[in-house]
């Protein structure tokens, strides 16, 4: 059977909920992403990283989803598909798994921005502080 990215799915989805969706737009603007899918990948990578570090990450599916982009415009689809298949060892519903990690990263980002973001205006400030936080954050049970 030929290898198919995300089992041949054609669309990538985002969260339907209005509040989440508004926040998503705000984050996209504040972090300077030109494409929604790039912010979604960033959120997913945050969840992967936190999981690897052993932080407590609650991974569960988002409430409901709607279309975000088609698969051709998701340039890193193969990488994330491969990560889920090999690293997470999940063969079925890999795109659904991607959505779960994306949603979890998104929620982390929202909490972080609420706590640390109000005084951070420039993109470089945001990234620099977020990076320091991610790299130095201790596990919650430490």
């Amino acid at each position, binding site marked *: 059977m030929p290898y198919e990215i995300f089992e041949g799915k054609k669309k990538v989805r985002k969260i339907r909920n209005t509040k989440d969706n508004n926040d998503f737009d705000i984050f996209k603007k504040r972090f300077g992403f030109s494409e929604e899918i*790039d912010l979604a990948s960033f959120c997913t990578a945050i969840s992967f990283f936190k999981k690897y570090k052993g932080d407590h990450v609650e991974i569960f599916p988002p409430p409901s989803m709607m279309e975000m982009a088609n698969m051709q415009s998701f340039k890193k689809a193969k990488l994330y598909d491969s990560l889920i298949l*090999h690293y997470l060892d999940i063969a079925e519903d890999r795109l659904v798994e991607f959505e779960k990690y994306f949603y979890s990263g998104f929620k982390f980002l929202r909490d972080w921005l609420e706590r640390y973001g109000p005084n951070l205006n420039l993109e470089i400030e945001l990234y620099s502080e977020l990076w320091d936080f991610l790299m130095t954050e201790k596990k919650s049970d430490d």
Partner: protein
Amino acid sequence: MKFLKLRLKNFKPYLTRGEFQEIPLFDTDVKSSYITLNIGQTGFGKTSISEAIMWCLFGEDFVAQWEDFVNSLSIQIAKEYKEETVDMVVELLLEIGHNSYKVIRQGIYCIDSKQREKNTELYVIYNGEPLPNPIIFIGKNFPVVKLMEYFIFDADDILKKFQDNQKKAIGDHINKLVGVEKLDKIIESLRDVSDLLDREIFEMQNKIQDDLSEKRKNVWEDIKTKEIALKELKEEIEQRNKKKRKLFEPSPTPEEEEFYNLIKKRDSLTDKIEKLNAEFQENKITSNLDLLLLKQILDSTVKKINEKKTSKEEFEGSIKLIQSALGEAYSGLFFKAEDEINLIKKDTQISGASLEKVHELNLEFGGEMKSDAIYTFCEHNTRMKEIEEKFENFRTRYKEAKEELLKTINRIKLKGETTKTKELKEKIEKFKELENQINIRKNRMEEIEEKKREKKNEHKELIEKIKMSEEQESEVKKLKNKQEFVRRLSLISDKAKKEFLSGIINYINTNSSNSLRNIVRDTKRFNSIEIDNDYSFKIKRENGEELKQNQINRGTLTISMLSFFFGLSQYLEKGIPYIIDNPLIRLDPGHDKRLIEELSKHKNQIILHLIPGKEYTKESYNWLKSKINMQNWIQRYEFMDKDLISSVDSQDKYKFIEFNIDEF
């Protein structure tokens, strides 16, 4: 360009009656070197040569009170002869390309009024005829007077300026001298034209009558009102900024100056961070920052394996991670040579000795796998590495600037709290109030900008609904084509500017680093000169570490600064000559010789003013003679004024003579 000869009449120590005093500056028969030396004791008239050239080229723009330059003895003599005025004249003979020009500046001093008769006269003679507009000739061939200080200067003075305001000095050099500033102006004008066309299009579309025309008109009016409000707020901010400056401008006390300098530092750091952010946005690395997080996982995996802290479970997890990053098409890693790693494609047949290497790398726990193989994968993944380097570079620069900014803000706060001077306290209060007013206006501007954007979007949507006649459509299309053309031109200019700048900076860095290495020859300590995009100047060790200010002595700094100047001068087409006072005085033994050797490679004319005994000895002559174009000995004859006045027709007070090594 070459300065061939200088002729002087009553300019500073160069007293004459009748004939001019002549100083040859370049011998066109000598092709091997472009260095001229003027050697003379302090106070004998070396610096006056530099000043005479500046006055000749720029007159009142160089020095408003040029009456002070008129030789005082010449005034006494003129009085003796019952003359009413004294002529001060400087003639500079120069060569541009293969053409010779004579630039003449004349000032007439009135003895009675002790003032000029009128402003100076400037003439430029070419082929025996005066040019109709000599000022245009100067403007075309020389930078403005302020920038000439980077060509005609005292080594110590310029070093101080360079240390005090390094970025401005370098920025001036690069932006103004090479014309980047002009490119900036072009880009700005193109943006203005684009805005103008934008307006024209909107105005035209607004004229079209349909059901939505009223609504469109209202939205458009709203946008215009917001633009007016923004303009007003901008003016109000500018007025308050001026008031802020004025608070500390008229002869401040040292304490006030210190406070104001801190404020200036704070503003420049804030500006630096904002520019850094704009550069960060332009680089568009954010869309790949997820890869960096994944690289962190890979790096951390490798570290664990190296430290043998990994369990079988973790190890297998890591291998899966690596495999997933490698992708399905690859089955492993393969060392082709010691430092070259290849990915092995699935189902590739590997034979003989290579196969052994593959077995060494087999991805099995407890096997012979080398952890650095995985690391090499990360290292070789150029995309991740490139992004990581860029991001780290931005983060470091941001953190440094932010730390400095926070320190400065604290010092400002402390100064405000601890000062015991009533006047300063009051000024600080006023200053704070003005800053508050500015911040309120800036916030207001942001709000209006946001609303304006919304309105513009609304207007755009309304415009899309317009049904235009064919004629109207074609008119709008024409304007839009024009606008697109301007937009592209602006993009090209912007790109050209960036490429041009980074090209220049690379060029200067390479050339000035070579010069530094050739002169100092301590490549471990002083290996390279690096100018950043924000014009900060760094001297680096061989290991790339940046040297701190206190690790560089004045001599080495002088060499670095001159290396930078000459590195850039090779870029400038006009090749304006350099005239430098006392360049060797601060240098360590041996560096002077190598500096001259380095300078002798340049195609620009370089005139050096040296002090005998300190910068120039008999021994210097032996090694210098082959490196230079010509040398002059600036001599001074002392007379008692009363003796001179009666015998002035045959004697000069100060006299320049041709250099003679035996006399020296």
